[in-house]
């Protein structure tokens, strides 16, 4: 019997890795799926193709299914998040001119960067982001809004053009996913200041999404896809597999990128300035450990609250993060399940053991840079 074809959209960024590995290493085939990865030129196009039924599933920016489910943005539709594909993995960088104004600041010091940017004279800081409904934009807004004097203007720039946008003076800074931060450094037009994790230690970045109706009528295909991606993410997070992962991703037709552009995100060795040694940063991009793939309903609620949703919108957001399906479809292959599907976001400052079905769950820190916590549980 031939495998069932499943069309899954993606945008060629390093963090589409779980989908590429699920296909290339046969995790999808093991589940009886012929995973057809369909490259998309923009997030808008990917969203349209998914919403209008030309794709069965897709890699999405974590705020996209939330926004669509609430009814924000260009195309409202009921879209579910089946699981999280990646946590963290973005960088904030500034042009060489801005970097010179800021002076020496240790990489990752979110408070010091904010203070220096606020003290800087001049016009509004123009910051490039990949999409309006992106974690990049939400983290930027959250972080910048805590400084009273800082004026920023957010400009959407397709990531492959981010380095040129800095070089042309179209933007002064950017918040982007890899490899495009490293590309800007290599082109000697920018310097990386911090990573997404320095603002929120455990931010869901990309998710696996599908139309709510499709999930309802194709429960079996959804389950197979989730199992394949779960296994791929476990494989990706194993330290010994990293070099091979870089090689497979580089060779695959899906990414068309050289290995040295893929390596920094996976190894966590980031070159922050041209002609300097790489800075090893922990937990730069995570696929699996610390329940990274679990779609916490409280993460959806945080996203919705940052998008300005009301209480009803927050409930819709929670419902579209399908923790229920995750439990139902992945318990059978040994995934450890947390005792609850919501947590107080921002409460963990250290690795913390929590109650789980198999008793092995250790959650990673999820604190915000300013120490705020968010409790969305309905009491």
């Amino acid at each position, binding site marked *: 019997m031939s495998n069932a074809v499943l069309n899954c959209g993606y945008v060629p960024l390093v963090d589409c890795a779980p989908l590429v590995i699920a296909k290339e290493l046969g995790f999808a085939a093991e589940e009886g799926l012929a995973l057809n990865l369909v490259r998309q030129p*923009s997030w*808008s196009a990917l969203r*349209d193709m998914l919403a*209008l039924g*030309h794709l069965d599933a897709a890699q999405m920016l974590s705020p996209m299914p939330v926004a669509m489910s609430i009814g924000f943005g*260009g195309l*409202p539709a009921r879209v579910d998040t089946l699981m999280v594909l990646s946590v963290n993995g973005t960088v904030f960088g500034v042009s060489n001119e801005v970097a010179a104004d800021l002076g020496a600041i240790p990489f990752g010091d979110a408070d010091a960067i904010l203070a220096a940017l606020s003290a800087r004279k001049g016009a509004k800081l123009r910051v490039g982001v990949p999409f309006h409904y992106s974690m990049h934009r939400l983290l930027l807004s959250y972080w910048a809004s805590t400084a009273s004097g800082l004026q920023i203007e957010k400009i959407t720039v397709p990531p492959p*053009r981010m380095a040129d946008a800095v070089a042309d003076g179209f933007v002064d800074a950017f918040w982007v996913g890899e490899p495009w931060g490293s590309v800007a450094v290599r082109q000697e037009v920018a310097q990386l200041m911090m990573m997404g994790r320095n603002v929120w230690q455990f931010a869901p970045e990309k998710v696996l999404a599908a139309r709510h109706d499709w999930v309802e009528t194709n429960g079996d295909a959804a389950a197979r896809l989730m199992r394949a991606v779960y296994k791929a993410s476990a494989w990706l997070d194993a330290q010994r597999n990293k070099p091979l992962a870089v090689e497979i991703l580089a060779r695959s037709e899906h990414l068309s990128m050289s290995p040295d552009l893929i390596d920094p995100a996976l190894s966590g060795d980031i070159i922050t300035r041209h002609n300097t040694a790489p800075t090893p940063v922990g937990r730069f991009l995570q696929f699996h450990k610390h329940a990274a793939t679990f779609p916490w309903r409280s993460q959806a609620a945080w996203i919705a609250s940052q998008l300005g949703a009301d209480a009803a919108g927050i409930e819709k957001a929670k419902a579209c993060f399908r923790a229920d399906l995750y439990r139902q479809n992945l318990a059978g292959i040994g995934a450890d399940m947390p005792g609850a599907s919501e947590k107080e976001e921002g409460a963990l400052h250290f690795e913390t053991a929590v109650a789980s079905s198999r008793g092995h769950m250790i959650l990673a820190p999820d604190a915000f840079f300013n120490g705020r916590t968010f409790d969305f549980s309905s009491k």
Partner: protein
Amino acid sequence: MNQKLRILVVEPDPARVRAIIDALNDAGWSDVKALAQMSALDRTVKEFAPDIVLIDLANPDRDTLEHISDATETSKRAVALFVDQTDDTLTQAALSAGVSAYVVDGLKMERIKSVLETAIARFKIMRQMQSELDAAKQALEDRKTIDRAKGILMRQRDMSEDAAYTLLRTTAMSQNRKVIDVAHALVTAADLLS
């Protein structure tokens, strides 16, 4: 009258822009503006205040356009054409022709339908021409590869050109592969060994 609609076409390729504008003008819309430079998008949208923006579905600048229509605080909020799924045939036709459109919220479907039909027809022709061009390029590439493979066989096995091609073809048939795939494999192997 429909002629009152303001249409903005976002497209970097001058030939394509001309084709689209001509088609719209011929169909009776005169208030059409073209935009190639994305850096001017924000200003153009505000100043020209289009009723409809037409853009290739595959254009990466769509994300920027969406941001502007989303963040601009005007009463005239633009929404993607695909939101109005009352006319599913038209939506699917637009999708398969590769047109995406942004229309001012509240604009009635019947008012924009003929604009879209004109755009869809034009995009379809352009897509057809593009795929024919791609196919021609691919055929040329394939022929070069097959010629190289034949050359390798002629040199290494001291064969005539006809015999080399026959060998490629029979190998392909016996392995249930295409001639071009066998030729590719041979050229790659030869490159590795040389």
